[in-house]
């Protein structure tokens, strides 16, 4: 602990002014709050196990259907007992996958970030957290959010937007806990710091807190339609734009920037080496946060999103490569001269591998954002492999390294076993490789199969399930990899628990001391023009350039959190505004189609079921204008088709086929039988069974409320908003569908069941565009919408 603010050795930047002899130094004493860090570390360990376990379960759910019906010669079904995994409504892939992603991102990575922030911020600021009460409220509030997620998601309460599934009351709680408790506590600690300058880790924490607040608030805008039901205020193309602005920047500002902050603190600590380059940290920090915010639309290449937005998403992703790598090289080069330590120290092994995975993912990300690469990779497992090399490799390994470094310090006992930590490292790393490598192969395999044509010009694999069956060996390997990764985490849990058991009776709380910050004027360095010619403009320019490249101004910002925060806000808001706002105000981005009408009340109820069951986790609703795709699914999707889709359901992965044009393709009875047990219709299907939809009654009374909520956000429901009208309309349509099913010798008495609503919705999907436009007061519909040209298929 050095109270000195003066330079000790090396080169001084002009900004550092030694305290003058006349200034009286007031020493203050304080104690760091490590109890809160212990809490967050424990939560990280526990939620990590949960997230990895649920991940393993959902991975299992993709292979189990292929073995449950396996029958031995003796006629027994040895794997039949596993069918509960694909037949229980609360455990289906569609409901558990959001639980897995939320647990991994917000519970595991979130608590890990908080542990890092609470430990390092106090030390970097030479101050205890501003408020112990807020620290505790933050901790318990966040755990409450996670528990709420763990309860509501399997029950099917969801907003239907990836990584933003939690319903509106939980969203409000997140906003309060994140900004009200965490943000306030953090910023007040900055304000009360005893260290003049803010270290680079703190910059990343600032960017994190500011940006996650913005992302969460704007993406989660929804109109409640009940205590646990709401509709996104955005629809279709605009909702997609908001969602991936959020989704991509959740990766950026929840899984990247805080972890870079973590790296900047714990890596030099563990290596006991100075950080490689201060200047690099400045340029890569600002370029990273400015560029990252634009990259979201690369999740929507070739969709109904306007091409200019998609291009911006791609280009900013490419420009993001170096800003991302700046962090990686600053981390790895910090180890210059200390590589021998890596062989001995498991903590450094985790950090080195973690940063390496970071650099691989941040190279791969820009590559996947290139449109022609994305054409192949989009909707495939390639994306899944990519995010897991980031999540397991970067977030996971960095977290483990941090926990092994922190445990002896927090629990004030020697780490129980270094050897087990080494084992964890190798198990984890091997687990990641056994996961991601086969899943890359699976992604590329499926992508190529989808686009393969035979010599006659037909799809080589017209039957979608053929492309699924081919993936099973890779999915098994993923399970092996995931098990190894989980086994490593179990070893860590044991190791940390044993370390905790060896803790002293009472923790030592060393009293720190540091001088209070006194107002000290920042002395701007003076620059003299190096030019000889006597041109005033030239001199000024030269002075300005020298001044800019000297970087003294950044040193000044580091002393003034308010200024720093302001510039961080400018950096992330400018990109957001420039990219998102035109999507809302320029009408040509979403040309309207007269024949596209709101869903009927029953179809809306069916859509709610589609969202609740998480169908979007496996089925896209977006046909790209690619020949192989229109050949398989029909006419490509138009922006105007989604104007009543609150929320949009384009999806991001095709574990099952696209459903954008599902309407009218199959009979109602086929849907009933298929939902009841997909394997009686498609033998090799891996879809869960939805037999419960044939039994559970549809809540007709809720439909009125839902229709009204939709009307409030601008869906022209007309008559249907009148009391009782929506339910009556829904009942009428349900009876027609149920009668049709009964007539075809299907199950009888379905008119009051959920399944008819879902079928009504599925039969509507993608059909509006080929309908004649409704009669309207205008004399003639626009020519482009005449029924004959509604279809662009050759005729």
């Amino acid at each position: 602990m050095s109270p000195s603010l003066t330079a000790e050795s090396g080169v001084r930047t002009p900004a550092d002014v030694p305290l003058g002899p006349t200034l009286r130094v007031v020493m203050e004493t304080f104690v760091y709050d490590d109890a809160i860090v212990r809490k967050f570390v424990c939560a990280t360990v526990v939620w990590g196990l949960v997230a990895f376990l649920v991940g393993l379960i959902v991975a299992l759910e993709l292979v189990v259907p292929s073995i449950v019906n396996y029958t031995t010669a003796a006629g027994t079904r040895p794997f039949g007992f596993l069918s509960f995994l694909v037949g229980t409504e609360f455990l289906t892939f569609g409901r558990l996958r959001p639980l897995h992603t939320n647990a991994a991102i917000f519970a595991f990575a979130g608590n890990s970030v908080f542990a890092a922030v609470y430990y390092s911020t106090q030390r970097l600021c030479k101050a205890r957290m501003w408020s112990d009460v807020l620290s505790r409220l933050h901790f318990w509030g966040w755990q409450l959010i996670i528990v709420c997620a763990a309860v509501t998601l399997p029950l099917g309460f969801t907003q239907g937007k990836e990584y933003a599934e939690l319903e509106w009351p939980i969203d409000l709680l997140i906003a309060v806990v994140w900004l009200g408790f965490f943000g306030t506590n953090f910023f007040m600690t900055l304000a009360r710091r005893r260290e003049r300058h803010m270290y680079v880790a703190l910059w990343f924490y600032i960017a994190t807190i500011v940006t996650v607040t913005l992302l969460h608030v704007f993406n989660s805008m929804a109109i409640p339609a009940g205590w646990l039901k709401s509709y996104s205020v955005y629809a279709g193309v605009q909702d997609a734009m908001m969602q991936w602005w959020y989704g991509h920047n959740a990766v950026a500002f929840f899984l990247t920037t805080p972890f870079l902050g973590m790296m900047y603190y714990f890596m030099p600590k563990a290596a006991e080496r100075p950080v490689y380059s201060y200047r690099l940290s400045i340029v890569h920090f600002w370029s990273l946060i400015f560029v990252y915010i634009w990259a979201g639309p690369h999740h929507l290449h070739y969709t109904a999103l306007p091409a200019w937005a998609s291009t911006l998403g791609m280009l900013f992703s490419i420009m993001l490569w170096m800003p991302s790598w700046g962090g990686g090289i600053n981390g790895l080069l910090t180890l210059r001269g200390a590589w021998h330590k890596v062989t001995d120290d498991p903590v450094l092994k985790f950090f080195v591998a973690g940063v390496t995975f970071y650099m691989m993912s941040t190279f791969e990300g820009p590559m996947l954002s290139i449109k022609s690469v994305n054409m192949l990779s989009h909707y495939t497992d390639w994306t899944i492999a990519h995010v897991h090399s980031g999540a397991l490799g970067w977030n996971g390994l960095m977290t483990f390294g941090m926990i092994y470094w922190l445990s002896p310090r927090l629990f004030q006992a020697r780490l129980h076993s270094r050897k087990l930590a080494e084992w964890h490292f190798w198990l984890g790393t091997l687990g990641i490789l056994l996961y991601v490598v086969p899943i890359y192969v699976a992604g590329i395999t499926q992508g190529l199969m989808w686009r393969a044509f035979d010599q006659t010009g037909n799809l080589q694999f017209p039957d979608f399930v053929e492309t699924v069956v081919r993936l099973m060996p890779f999915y098994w390997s993923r399970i092996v990899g995931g098990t190894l990764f989980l086994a490593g985490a179990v070893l860590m849990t044991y190791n940390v628990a044993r370390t905790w058991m060896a803790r002293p009776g009472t923790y030592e709380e060393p009293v720190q001391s540091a001088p209070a910050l006194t107002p000290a004027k920042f002395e701007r360095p003076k620059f003299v023009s190096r030019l000889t010619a006597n041109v005033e403009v030239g001199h000024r320019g030269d002075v300005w350039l020298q001044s800019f490249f000297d970087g003294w101004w950044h040193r000044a910002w580091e002393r003034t959190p308010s200024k720093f925060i302001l510039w961080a806000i400018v950096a992330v808001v400018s990109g957001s505004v420039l990219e998102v706002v035109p999507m809302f105000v320029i009408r040509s981005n979403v040309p309207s189609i007269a024949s596209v009408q709101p869903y009927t009340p029953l179809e809306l109820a069916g859509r709610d079921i589609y969202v609740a069951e998480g169908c979007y986790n496996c089925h896209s609703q977006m046909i790209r204008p690619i020949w192989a795709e229109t050949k398989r699914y029909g006419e490509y999707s138009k922006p105007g088709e989604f104007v009543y889709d609150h929320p949009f359901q384009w999806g991001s992965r095709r574990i099952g086929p696209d459903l954008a044009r599902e309407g009218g393709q199959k009979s109602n009875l086929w849907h009933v039988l298929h939902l009841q047990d997909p394997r009686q219709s498609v033998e090799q299907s891996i879809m869960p069974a939805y037999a419960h939809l044939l039994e559970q009654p549809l809540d007709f009374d809720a439909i009125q409320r839902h229709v009204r909520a939709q009307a409030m956000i601008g869906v022209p429901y007309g008559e249907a908003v009148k009391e009782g009208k929506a339910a009556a309309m829904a009942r009428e349509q349900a009876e027609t569908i149920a009668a049709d099913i009964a007539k075809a010798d299907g199950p009888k008495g379905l008119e009051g069941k959920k399944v008819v609503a879902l079928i009504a919705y599925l039969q509507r999907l993608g059909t509006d565009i080929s309908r004649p436009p409704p009669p309207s007061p205008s004399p003639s519909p626009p020519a482009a919408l005449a029924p004959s040209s509604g279809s662009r298929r050759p005729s």
Partner: protein
Amino acid sequence: MSVQSPGPLSSHEYDGIREYDNPTPGWWYAILTATVVFSAVYFVFWHASVAGWSIHDSWEDDQRAEYARIFGAVGQLKPDEASILAQMGNPKFMNIARATFIGNCASCHARDGGGDVGVNLCDESYKNVVKIEDLFRVITDGANGGAMPSWKNRLSDNERVILASYVASLRGTTPARAKAPEGQPIPPWPRPAAPVATPPAPK
């Protein structure tokens, strides 16, 4: 803390962490600049110049090329008895129609036409078909109140003609699992009037 590597240390120290004042590597700036320049050129080329084209343009090119390749030589096929019978003998068209069948019809009628939710297409009984051209009509307009959907908007006229031929050719084949006959037995398809018309040129 020993300092072994070259590079000047800055005066900064935070909780024992120090920073070198190393310059940002030159290659870092070089690549960043290259990506920025590339991006500017790319954006202007594709969105602000006459040279660029859209994915929709490419799709339409594909469509024209594909249509010309398959049907270019035959023009518009007539959905009548003679034409449907004639196409049954055209192996190229039957291959194409088979893929259409697997992609669109197999989910209800089974891959080999043996029937599942939809009727068995391999037996001698038909529900809505008496003459061979009725196959085209049912495919086009649907039947049984939409249980058999209409494919008018999903498949082109020619595609539906050769699909009708393909379905007609399934009659009399032996499926893996045959659904019980539905509807009435109908007379066999007429024989083609003449040997198969000259098959279309490969181009």
